[in-house]
């Protein structure tokens, strides 16, 4: 093969594809990106068997052909070539030669016959999403997914339509994040469960696009198609737990506090938290006390009182610092509300005046 193209274009494409190559060395060809020169098109493919990507670039093709080279090597090389506009990729004795005006490089190739195809999503349902909505939804909840592979549906992000919204949910059974995103048109699908491990790559790819993207959904796969990129991911054919039944309907104690105050306080408190990151909260509306305290036998202890609007019953309860802190990345409002439901019951965190995001944290056993 022999193609010539703009370096800038191919750099973005290769760096996207390289992220998806396999780090696992069982099958070395999976570390590669596959370059396929067709009629004035260069198709770049990569897969780790969980995700697959296919990027099509318009190029000047002088000779069609196909080659597979290690993604890491190619990416580092191309990003390091400074100040060049055009770049020529050609095969020499089945290896890949990359040449610019000043530079000439030869990268050893792998047998491209071993490279798997990127499956087509067949029998799929077509949906369109705004890329910002999808990214926002994924980013708001994905950190709450379970890292254990015991229950695939908990290691996934659950997406379903609800009237004029699309709802994103993730939980690891200790905390749960739910984000509702308003959409213009009601979406016609029942549910999607995407493995959360694929989410960072999906977000990275979607960030390349503005506006609408096409999503094709079938029983086992989902594909995101944007500009010239096609990204496919496995979807889980399972059933997400009926989480709605555990969302508290009322609250016995309510606290409203400035988000930044709480973050600062938590940060200080965490210095003295124990091995389990335990942070105790003490709330008394009558005495107007909202106190965070931590205690570590080896390091020391800390108490911190916060300015807050309090109402309801008195309560003392402990949480894992990490779980509480995680939620702030999804709360945009300046103030957060904490709704308690008595000892031993989960806490609901929300941004004040923001109905779209809900975060549920289970307390620690005393």
């Amino acid at each position, binding site marked *: 093969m022999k193609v010539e193209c703009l370096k800038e274009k191919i750099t973005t494409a290769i760096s996207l594809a390289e992220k998806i190559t396999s780090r696992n060395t*069982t*099958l*070395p*060809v*999976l570390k590669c990106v596959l370059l396929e020169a067709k009629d004035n098109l260069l198709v770049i493919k990569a*897969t780790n*068997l*969980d995700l*697959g990507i296919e990027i099509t670039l318009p190029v000047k093709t002088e000779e069609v052909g196909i080659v597979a080279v290690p993604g890491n090597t190619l990416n580092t090389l191309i990003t390091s070539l400074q100040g060049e506009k055009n770049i020529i990729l050609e095969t020499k004795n089945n290896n890949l030669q990359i040449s610019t005006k000043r530079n000439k490089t030869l990268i050893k190739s792998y047998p491209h016959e*071993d490279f*798997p*195809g990127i*499956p087509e999503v067949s029998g799929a349902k077509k949906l369109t999403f705004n890329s910002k909505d999808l990214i926002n939804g994924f980013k708001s909840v994905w950190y709450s997914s379970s*890292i*254990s*592979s*015991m229950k*695939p549906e908990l290691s996934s992000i659950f997406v379903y339509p609800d009237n004029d919204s699309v709802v994103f949910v993730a*939980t690891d*059974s*200790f*905390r*749960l994040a739910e984000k509702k995103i308003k959409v213009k048109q009601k979406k016609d699908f*029942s549910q999607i469960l995407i493995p959360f491990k694929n989410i960072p790559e999906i977000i990275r790819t979607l960030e390349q696009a503005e506006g609408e993207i096409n999503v094709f959904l079938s*029983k*086992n*796969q989902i594909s995101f198609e944007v500009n010239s990129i096609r990204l*496919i991911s*496995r979807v*889980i*054919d399972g*059933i*997400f*737990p*009926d*989480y709605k*039944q*555990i969302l508290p309907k009322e609250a016995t104690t309510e606290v409203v506090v400035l988000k930044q105050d709480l973050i600062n306080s938590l940060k200080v408190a965490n210095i003295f938290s124990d*091995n*389990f*990151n*335990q942070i105790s909260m003490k709330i008394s509306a009558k005495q107007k006390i909202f106190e965070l305290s931590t205690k570590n036998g080896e390091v020391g202890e800390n108490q911190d009182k916060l300015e807050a609007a309090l109402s309801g019953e008195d309560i003392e309860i402990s*949480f*894992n610092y*990490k*779980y509480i802190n995680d939620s702030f990345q999804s709360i945009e409002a300046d103030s957060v509300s904490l709704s308690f439901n008595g000892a*031993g019951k*989960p806490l609901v965190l929300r941004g004040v005046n923001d109905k779209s995001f809900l975060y*549920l944290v*289970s*307390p*620690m*056993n005393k």
Partner: protein
Amino acid sequence: MLDNKKLWDSVLARVELLVSKGNFNVWFKPTYVLKQEEGIITLSVPNPFVKDWLSDKFHKTMLKILRELQENVRSIEYVISASQAPKEAPVFSGHMPTQELPLSDLYINPEDNLNPRYTFDSFVVGPFNELAHAAAQAIIKKPVAYNPLFIYGNTGLGKTHLMQAIGNQMKGQSGKKIYYVTSEKFSQDLVNCIQSNKMKNFKDKYRKYDCLIMDDVQFLSNKEKSQEELFHLFNYLYDNNKQLVFSSDKHPNFIPGLEERLKSRCVAGMMVDIPAPDQESRVAILQTKSRAHNFTLPREVADYLASSVEGNIRELEGLLNSLMHQSQVRGRELSLVEIKTLLKNSAKPIKNLSVKEVVKIVAGFYNIEEDSIYDKTRRKEVVRPRQLAMYILREEFNVSYPSIGQKLGGRDHTTVIHSCEKIKNELKVDNLLVQELTQIKALI
């Protein structure tokens, strides 16, 4: 025929010779044979990449090897399913002290309320439920062939399984809108909608289905508003040629507090009774269930279990579960003697009551003197229990008419026949008597 695992292991052994180690580990190792039917091998693959790879590049090779091992193999089909690989133990580091959210595992599809575990594949058909199974198949092949289909039978005989299987099968075939609901959920829904003033939503919700499956209709008894709504819903769906499937623990005519118009509509379609399973079916059920759990159940154990529990399949399952658990704990198969001692407490022994004991129970139930049953007296409060005692002896214990007569105070066998007939006829109309009889049966 080789079993799935052996067959596939030998295929893999040969493939391993042909491909590189990396290729083998990535493409072949995570696959296994799901089932083989009529020469079609269904292969489970972990993801679409593997599916495409195998079907594009190795289909012919695999087929050739399969044919060498087993002549009748015609083709291979690929199914993407979650890997069978042993799952890692839960990681609890740092999480331990935090309570878990009470998320219940939900195996029920929220759209149609069906539990995907209930399928016809796991449904054991025996002489006892042949008719019900055939009726179910008929409405799947040709919806509204019988409308409504009404399945009744005692608890634990597989009514729910059958109904859910109908739903799952119909859904798989034609993509129709199916809804499974228990009568309890139905009335709960109704109450919620009345409270929130959303009756229109309620009506719209239930009327959009192509097939409505309602379980345990008997719980609607005396719930007038629910029955009224069901009545209208019934008419609407029936008129629009939609399938209805009902189940209950007894014939609709014997459900107390069910309105006549509903009763008559229920009996207008196909009524099927699921009686208690016979010994052979019980053995077959045990074997199917144990196979599903990968547990080998020796024939004589299955026979023993089946003979020790009559009627209820759920009870059979319970026994089997405790048995599997025990043998897992002990790490070996249990001998029949051990099983017998194990089950001594849980298994109900077959009843062998003397006539005298039955009379005692009946007399005790009606609070009359035991002796009066044997007497010649024709007082009304004694006649009824006496007749009932005769009926029970005849129906439940198969005692001959003459010997019943003889044992109950030297009566003629025709008296006994008359009594039995009388009770039998009354049972059809007298709900109170039906209830009394069930209560007495429970005492025996």
